[in-house]
C-alpha cells in the first residue's frame, strides 16, 4: 500500500531527517508511528501524502508516486494533521463543501460519529473548542472511507471519554483493505488499538514489527528488584517497582507496554536490532 524505497529527505543540508529509508506498509493494519520530537514522524506522514518530496529515492502510495498528488490518489487518503484548519462555518456547510471530493463519503456514518461525540451538526465551527473541532475532523476523516488514513496526534486535545470512543471507532473501521497510520506521543491512549509499531529514531526506522511478533520476542514485566539477568534489555523504576524489558527466551506471555518498549528502543537500539534482525 505504501512503499518507501531508499528515501533520503532533508529540510536543509544540515538537517537530514531520513537517510536511505526503506519501509513497506500493508493494508489491514493499524500502524503506530512513534518517535521523539523532531524525529520525522510528521515528515514521514507528509511524504506519504505527497506534501514532502524525498531528495532521493521514491515514495509510492496506493500504487502512485506520492509527490504527484494526483486526485486519484488524494481522494483515497485522508490526512489529519496535528494542527488543522477549519473555516468558520456550520458543520453541515463544511461537510457539503468538502465531502463531494471523496466519492465514498457516508453522511449517515458522519452523523453517527458526531452523535457519539455529542456534537450537533448544526453547530458553528467557530463556537467549538479545539478538542471538539478535532472530533469533527476525526469523524469526517473516517466517514470519507478512504483506503488510507493518516492521523497525526489524533488524541491530543480529546477528553478521556472521547479517547475511549476514538479507540472504539478506530477498531470498528479497521479492515483488510484499509491502512491506518497513527503518529502519537500518547502511547497509553492507543496501546490497545495499534497492531503494528514503527519507531523512528536518528534518521531511520528503529523498529518495524507487529505487536504479536514483539510480544513473542520481548517480555514486559514489573518487578520489585532488578536482578543481573543478562536477558534484561532495559529497566526503569516506577511507583510499583521496576518495569523491565527482557528478551523473551522463555516464550512467556506478557502485555505490550509501548512506553517501556519505546524507552528501551531509544536506550538500547543495538540490542533491539539484534533481536529483530534489523540492519
Amino acid at each position, binding site marked *: 500500500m505504501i512503499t518507501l524505497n531508499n528515501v533520503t529527505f532533508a529540510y536543509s543540508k544540515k538537517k537530514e531527517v531520513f537517510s536511505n529509508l526503506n519501509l513497506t506498509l500493508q493494508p489491514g493494519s493499524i500502524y503506530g508511528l512513534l518517535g521523539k520530537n523532531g524525529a520525522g514522524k510528521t515528515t514521514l506522514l507528509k511524504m506519504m501524502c505527497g506534501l514532502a518530496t524525498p531528495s532521493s529515492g521514491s515514495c509510492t502510495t496506493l500504487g502512485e508516486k506520492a509527490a504527484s498528488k494526483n486526485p486519484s490518489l488524494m481522494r483515497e487518503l485522508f490526512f489529519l494533521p496535528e*494542527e488543522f484548519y477549519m473555516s468558520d462555518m456550520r458543520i453541515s456547510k463544511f461537510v457539503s463543501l468538502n465531502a463531494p471530493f471523496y466519492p465514498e463519503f457516508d453522511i449517515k456514518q458522519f452523523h453517527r460519529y458526531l452523535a457519539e461525540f455529542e456534537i450537533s451538526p448544526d453547530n458553528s465551527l467557530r463556537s467549538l473548542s479545539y478538542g471538539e473541532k478535532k472530533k469533527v475532523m476525526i469523524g469526517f476523516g473516517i466517514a470519507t472511507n478512504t483506503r488510507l488514513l493518516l492521523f497525526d496526534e489524533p488524541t491530543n486535545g480529546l477528553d478521556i471519554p472521547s479517547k475511549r470512543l476514538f479507540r472504539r471507532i478506530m477498531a470498528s473501521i479497521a479492515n483488510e483493505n484499509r491502512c491506518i497510520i497513527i503518529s502519537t506521543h500518547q502511547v497509553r491512549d492507543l496501546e490497545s488499538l495499534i497492531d503494528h509499531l514503527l519507531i523512528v529514531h536518528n534518521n531511520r526506522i528503529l523498529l518495524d514489527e507487529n505487536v504479536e511478533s514483539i510480544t513473542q520476542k520481548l517480555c514486559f514485566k514489573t518487578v520489585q528488584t532488578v536482578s543481573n539477568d543478562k536477558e534484561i534489555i532495559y529497566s526503569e523504576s516506577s511507583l510499583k517497582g521496576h518495569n523491565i524489558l527482557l528478551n523473551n527466551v522463555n516464550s512467556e506471555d506478557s502485555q505490550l507496554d509501548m512506553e517501556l518498549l519505546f524507552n528501551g528502543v531509544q536506550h538500547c537500539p543495538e540490542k533491539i536490532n539484534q533481536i529483530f534482525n534489523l540492519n
Partner: protein
Amino acid sequence: MNNIFSIKRFALLVRKQWLENYLLYIGSFIVLMAFDFFILYQSNSWDLNNQGYYAHFDTLPTFIISFGVSAAFILLAYFRTINTHTKQLAYFTQPTSTLEKLAAIFLFMVPVMLIAFGAALSISIPVMHSMYDTFHHTTSPLFSKYEISTMKEAILVILTMQSLILLGMHTFKRHAIVKISIAIIILFILFFYALPGLTFNWILPIEGFRSCSYDTIDFLKNHEYGQMVYKGIPYLPSYLIYVCWFVLYFKIKEKQL
C-alpha cells in the same frame, strides 16, 4: 480517472472557494463601489466648484486606482486561503489537480475581478458623468482615446504585478511581501533601465522618463526628448504575465510543506 482536469472537480473547487470567501468578495465590491463614487464625486465637485476648470471629466485616476484596489482585494482573498501552514495543508491535500487549482485561482483573479471592477465602474462613472454633463450642458464621450489606451496599459501592468505577487506567495516561505517587493523593483529596473540601456548603449542613468508603457519608453537624455519602441520578445515585459502563470503551475504542483 482523469488526473489532469475534471469539470466536476473544478466546479466543486470554485464553489468551495466562493462559499468560503463570498462575504469578503461582496464586502470588497461594496467598498470598491463606495470608493469609486467617493473619488468621482470629489473630482466632480472640484470641476463644478472651479466652473469647469478641467476640459473633460477625469476618470483615469479613478480607473487606475480602483483597478489596483480590486486586484489587491482579490489577492487578499486568495492570501487568506493559503497564509498559514494549516490552511496550506488543507488546500494542498484537497483531491483536485494542479490545473484545477490554477484555473480556480485564475478565474477569481482575472475574469471575476474584471467583471466586479467593470460593474462597479459601469455604475459609478455614468452617474457622475451625467451630473457633469448636466451642469456644463455638454455631451462628452465616457472615455477619450487617450484614456482607453492608458487604461489598457494599466490593466496589463496591474495584472502583471498581480501575477508576480501570486508567484511570490508560492515561492517565498518567509517575508514574502518584502521579497516580492524587492523582486518587482529589480524587474522594473531590468526592463525599464538595464535592458534598454544595454541594448541601445545608453549611459546610465538616464535623466528621466516621461512615461513608460509595455512597448514604448519616452525618455529624456541630455535635455532632449526621445522615444524608444521595444521590438522583439526579450524586451516585451508583457510576456511576463504568461511566464508568471506558467511558472505558478509548477510552483503549485511541486509545493512542499
